[in-house]
């Protein structure tokens, strides 16, 4: 009898998910600036997919779709040099990709591009990482949520879906908050949400033929501009203390460093 399986599949509620991925310098990259300290010096720097986006947001989205059916679309705002990380996301298991062809000038700009696309497509959940490890904004997620007028769950470290209701644990200072929210919503991923996946050969091959769309940005008014960068004052050098003389260390911490 046909129909029974169909209706079962129907109650599993297929999901349409968007994962926003960004490109950041490799964590070990040397940080330097050019153009009178107004631009990041990308010379010799290796770029990677932002770890929170790749390890947690993307993998959890893929897991959900593996269980309930549906699609995972990855979205990046950046130039063609970002295609490499987008292909990686497809190799890990995303179904298709969109790149907004523009310099991601700041959070405000990026959020408007993401929201612009999300408004057309009606995703059940928009996933982001908790922050990018370069400019450490932690700003984009809340902006997207507000632009979409949707709930925002930040720092999610655990998440399960039942129908269209998600039960989520989010990291807060000194603990976790457990909450429930119905789709559609926006979520930012923290450590714990999923386990990193390494793309395999098959994934890499398949990625080559997955749909990949490049679109032009929508214009956005600039509210914030970068003036300059500087490096923090260098440490003056370590003062070594005799391991037999911990009274001396305590004295230094009290009298010189004034921290105890």
């Amino acid at each position, binding site marked *: 009898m046909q129909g029974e399986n169909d209706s079962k599949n129907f109650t599993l509620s297929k999901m349409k998910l968007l994962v926003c991925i960004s490109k950041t*310098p490799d964590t*070990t990259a040397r*940080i330097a600036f050019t153009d009178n300290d107004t631009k990041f010096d990308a010379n010799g720097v290796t770029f990677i997919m932002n770890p929170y986006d790749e390890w947690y947001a993307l993998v959890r989205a893929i897991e959900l779709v593996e269980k309930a059916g549906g699609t995972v679309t990855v979205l990046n705002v950046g130039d063609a040099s970002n295609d490499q990380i987008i292909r990686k996301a497809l190799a890990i298991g995303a179904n298709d990709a969109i790149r907004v062809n523009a310099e991601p000038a700041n959070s*405000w700009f990026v*959020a408007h591009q993401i929201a612009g696309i999300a408004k057309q497509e009606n995703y059940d959940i928009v996933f982001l990482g908790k922050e990018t*490890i*370069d*400019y*450490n904004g*932690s*700003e984009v*997620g*809340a*902006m*997207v*949520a*507000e632009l979409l*007028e949707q*709930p925002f*769950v*930040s720092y999610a470290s655990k998440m399960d879906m039942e129908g269209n209701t998600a*039960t989520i644990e*989010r*990291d*807060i*200072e*000194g*603990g*976790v*908050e*457990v*909450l*429930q*929210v119905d789709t559609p919503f926006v979520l930012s991923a923290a*450590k*714990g949400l999923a386990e990193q996946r390494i793309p395999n050969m098959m994934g890499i091959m398949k990625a080559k033929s997955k749909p990949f769309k490049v679109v032009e940005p929508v214009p956005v008014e*600039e*509210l*914030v501009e*970068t*003036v*300059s*960068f*500087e*490096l*923090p004052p260098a*440490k003056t050098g*370590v*003062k*070594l*203390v005799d*391991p037999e003389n*911990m009274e001396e*260390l*305590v004295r230094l*911490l*009290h009298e010189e*460093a004034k*921290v*105890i």
Partner: protein
Amino acid sequence: MPIPKKFGMARGSNPQQMVLVFAESVNGKFKKAAFEAVTYGYETARAVGGECVALVLGPSENAGQLGEYGAAKVLSVSDEKLAQFDSQVYAAVIAEVAKRQGAKVVVMSHTSTGRSLVGRLSVRLNAGAVSGVVSVPSVNGGFTVKKGVFSGKAIATYRIKSDVKVLSLMGNECRPEKTGSAVAVEEVSVPVPEGRIKVLEVKRQEGTVPLPEAELVVSAGRGLKGPENWGMIEELAKELGATTACSRPVADAGWRPHHEHVGQTGIAIRPNLYIAIGISGAIQHLAGVNNSKVIVVINKDPEAPFFKAADYGVVGDAFEVVPKLTEAVKKFKAAH
């Protein structure tokens, strides 16, 4: 004769730049982050030539004390619906109050709550936002403010060009300072929308200061060999009144709970004192701790990279050094 414009345009042309500080409370109580934010709001108000007003949401005890940290008045919206956190609801209320009061700068703490609000308020108020600021804004040459970027490896200066600005203040960057006295709390009535997030439970460890707020942190790594050796770490922390932390492999191996994991993938902290014991100082670890004011490294390997980032170093075996340090702290406490 031309009159020197010593204080620039910003100060002279905008005499009433109101700074609205959302002072976060937990179970109705204010914590250090709220006092820091109000102190920062007061400093910011002085820089832009205006007044600092604090806003408290939900039930709160003794909100008037925020006056001590420089709030000229305290506004309160004590609707029941604000008892649990939903960024959509909170942002709607804060934005409404900011609009009615004509606030030009909106300040909050860079906590899990504050970070969920900055972006929303930026959109609602069409205001340029900078999260995690580490300096009081400067108004010479536009409104500029600094924040740490690249996991603390650099500092960026941003200029906000919009009329209204939104800032979140990095923790432990602005020492709470009592500059005034308690003020009256004024109840304001604004519409509070229905939230779509249902908080089921809040689980917090009791007793210790949470890591992001801790001023003193004792942290240990794989050099300790196994979870059974953490007794001496806890003892040192207890004597100092410090919070314990650990490196990532230690949390991954289950030696310590995950909420203690600091570093790039864990929590970023900036305590006054960070004592690192048996931690090599990998760049990803440093990314979360190198903004600590003072770093002490205890490691048996004089070549450990952590020494390069340290202020004080002890080359020695943790199993011998740590008990000695604990003893020295005990002695110090008895004498002071």
